[in-house]
């Protein structure tokens, strides 16, 4: 089962929690104070990290869809 990651940049407040949980999937644009999605469809070995990132996002800006 593959996953698709969606970041709501409107909601994102640059907390950086996502990049601490899943650095291969999320980065941060410091001048904009917004997350950067590095890969939209990460491989399944990153699932636990991506799920954690979505869970600890204070802005609840991350959605993980199962494809």
């Amino acid at each position, binding site marked *: 089962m593959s996953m698709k990651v969606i970041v709501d940049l409107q909601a994102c*407040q*640059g*907390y*950086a*929690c996502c*990049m*601490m949980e899943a*650095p291969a999937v999320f*980065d*941060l644009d*410091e001048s904009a*104070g917004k997350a950067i999605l590095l890969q939209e469809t990460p491989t399944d070995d990153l699932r636990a990290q991506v799920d954690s990132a979505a*869970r*600890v996002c*204070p802005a609840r800006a991350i959605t993980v869809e199962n494809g």
Partner: protein
Amino acid sequence: MRRVVVVGASLAAVHAIEGLRDHGYAGEIVLIGAEPHLPYDRPPLSKEALHQGPEVDKVHLRAPEWYADAGVELRLGRRATALDPARRIVVLDDGTPEEYDGMVLATGSTPKTLSTLGDVGPVNILRTVDDAVALHGQLIPGRHLVVLGAGFIGLEVAATASEMGLDVSVVELAPVPLTRVLGDEVGQWFRTHQEAHGVQLHCGSVLDGIDPGAGGSKIRLHNGTVLSADLVVAGVGVTPATGWLEGSGVRLADGVVCDKSLRTSVPGVVAAGDVTRWYNALFDEEMRVEQWTNAVEQGRHAAASLLGADEAYTPVPYFWSDQFNAKMRFVGRANAAEQVHVERMDDTSMVALFGRDGVLRGALCVNAARRLAQYSRAIRDQVPWGDVVEP
């Protein structure tokens, strides 16, 4: 296990419930909450929700149907008043006994009040969404607000009210705000930042008393200063909401005392969130963390422990504060730091590192959050202080 009772309709509670279901628990779940509301998000209550006027359905952590889908029976507007571990019963304030096989304690914190000062008239506190609604209604441009306590909540309320056009003064006992947590140099940055936006700080000020009057209150400081306030907000800290557990057999000591996996002294009872005191081996420290991210992770971890897992809970704590245009993010621990190293500091940004026992333990970034991931990893790996701080 057939019946889990979660006490406290909190962030930790939501994640404990989610954790129970994700880990395959299929039995009953009962959620008890003292407030009439479904669990909601507190951080916005001193920031954007306070500015805009909080609406409870906008700060809900989960939509109402989530609880039905997760098979959660709600007992909202009901306070737990006693726990009887021998009979495995928790008693509610209407006398109803709820039986449990497993229990999650997630009752959070209660704000401290100024009761030692006697009759101080109307002083607002900010903890619940109802508090935020009441406070929002009084934040009228041109009014003078006095905030008692320059902690994070106090400074956030000061910033929000100032942005709404109020004239804001903050009274703080310590000579520098946040100094107990972050040290003088970092605290001074926040003071300057607040003052640059027009907030007046009265630091090193002992509060002698508040005289309520028809047209507002007079705030008397020990140095003779008298501040006139149209409204007063006290942000003087919180205490863990454990009063109802006195005498129950659950071991208490400034919170609920837990083992490394968040189990309390009573079988079948775990704790999560602000109330939990546990040993975090990563920092070699018994700690209690009153922060959002901890409530999420601890709720989930406590659920796994309740279902039989034995893993130690060893997080690197994270918290944030937004004041005007300063987005402060912090990882790790700053308490009892032996070294504080300010790596970068200007009008709009800052990076500061906190060390103890020769290792990096904490890092603070203002408008510079990209570094956090690197520091968080260094704290987890217990990287020597000398390797992080360039000479």
